[in-house]
């Protein structure tokens, strides 16, 4: 069941975002509702994560960062998957909607990824004794972030909207393709460091809190992407409108 779960979540996120974009009636309130739910869940996450869940056997209270760190990186992965989906869609059929959605997904993904890596680094200090280590997860996540920072830089350095959309779609696909490769290769390069956790290797209360954290972050992911998408669209539409059929008088004179 575990391998399908991320896909199900991705489908839900996409459905929610598409719904929000497509149905004008929900646009004024839906994001507020989800944001409020996220904020409420965040407050209760503090309680669950800091008091209710038991301390980890070797890392004691330090291990509690798990409940926010892991969801952040998950959200980054979701956002980048959404980004590459939009990039492929754009290359198949041009649309400013997918371009704007790709941009917002990438930016939100970089935010979640950067915060996730920072939290990982903070976690590493007390557990491994160093801020940074040659760890497959650290390296692959950081490389992923760098690739998407490059993607955003390319977008901001290209003025022509069509070129920006096409070029960044190509960059998005190349970056995303390299992700699994980076992940596997650094694993082998350093090897055996750790294998992925799954619910059977994590205690039940911890799994519960982790999932609570993931849903919290999902709410924020949705709100961020939807709002960022609106900004991207409003920037576009200014440039997208056709010039008037007749020249304005000042132009002729």
């Amino acid at each position, binding site marked *: 069941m575990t391998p399908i779960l991320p896909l199900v979540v991705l489908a839900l996120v996409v459905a929610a975002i598409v719904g929000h974009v497509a149905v004008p009636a929900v646009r004024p309130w839906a994001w507020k509702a989800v944001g409020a739910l996220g904020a409420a869940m965040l407050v209760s996450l503090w309680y669950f994560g800091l008091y209710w869940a038991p301390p980890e056997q070797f890392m004691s209270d330090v291990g509690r960062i798990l409940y926010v760190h892991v969801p952040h990186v998950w959200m980054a992965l979701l956002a980048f998957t959404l980004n590459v989906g939009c990039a492929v869609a754009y*290359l198949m059929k*041009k649309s400013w909607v997918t371009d704007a959605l790709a941009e917002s997904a990438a930016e939100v993904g970089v935010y979640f990824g950067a915060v996730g890596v920072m939290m990982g680094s903070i976690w590493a200090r007390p557990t491994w004794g160093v801020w940074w280590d040659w760890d497959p997860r650290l*390296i692959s996540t950081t*490389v*992923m972030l*760098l*690739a998407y*920072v*490059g*993607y955003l*830089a*390319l977008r901001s*350095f*290209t*003025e022509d909207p*069509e*070129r920006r959309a*096409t*070029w960044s*779609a*190509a*960059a998005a*696909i*190349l*970056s995303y*393709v*390299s992700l699994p*490769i*980076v992940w*596997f*290769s*650094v694993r*082998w*390069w350093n090897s055996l460091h750790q294998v992925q956790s799954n619910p059977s290797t994590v205690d039940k209360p911890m799994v519960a809190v982790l999932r609570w954290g993931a849903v919290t972050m999902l709410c924020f992911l949705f709100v961020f992407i939807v709002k960022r998408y609106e900004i991207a669209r409003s920037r576009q539409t200014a440039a997208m409108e056709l010039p008037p059929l007749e020249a304005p008088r000042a132009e002729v004179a």
Partner: protein
Amino acid sequence: MKRPSLLGAAWLVLKKDWQIEWRTRARLTAIIFFSLATLLLFSFAMGPDIVTLRAHAPGYLWLGLLFASVLSLGESFRVEAENQALTGLVLTPVEPRAIFIGKVLGNASLLFVLSLVLLPVAVALYDVDLGRDPLSLVLVLFLGCVGISAPGTVYSAISANARARDVMLPLLLFPVLVPLLLAAVSATKFTLQPDPQEQLGSWLKLLTAFDLIYLSVGFLLFPKVAEED
């Protein structure tokens, strides 16, 4: 009039790149001296400890090649951007995919020549042993050069027309190339040093797989970036 096939056109593009290179020889000379300087700098920075240098030689060699590849890829598309020659090719018309194959092979062959030139330098500076498995070493170098060139060709076609192109190319290219470099460095290590656990074969397979992925994805993407919308 019989137009050349996809591979025929790719061969013409490749030959044209070689002709340009041969007429000026500027690009190859420049990147040879640039990567020589890079390798020298690594040995200065690491100090005279020959054991460390020898152990890290594969890494330095590939970093030298990587830095040189940025210059070489940028130059390869500066030639195409001058007079909008690339647009001229597309309008001739030449299939963009043929241009991709030709340019990748052109860039890869140049890098490959560079890597062969750097080998004796690595012997002199880092005291590595080339005689252990020269055939595999050459194969690793070739696969690595193709792997750098495939995404490099797509990205330099993009950055040749972008603002701040000198910054854009490495910013986009380096993260994508990380896995290839890891594999190439490890594979090179096992051709220069004893390999009792016989890992070289696996690294070679991995390099081949990376090349196939980069080549086919680049092949699909390049037509999109080669033409203006």
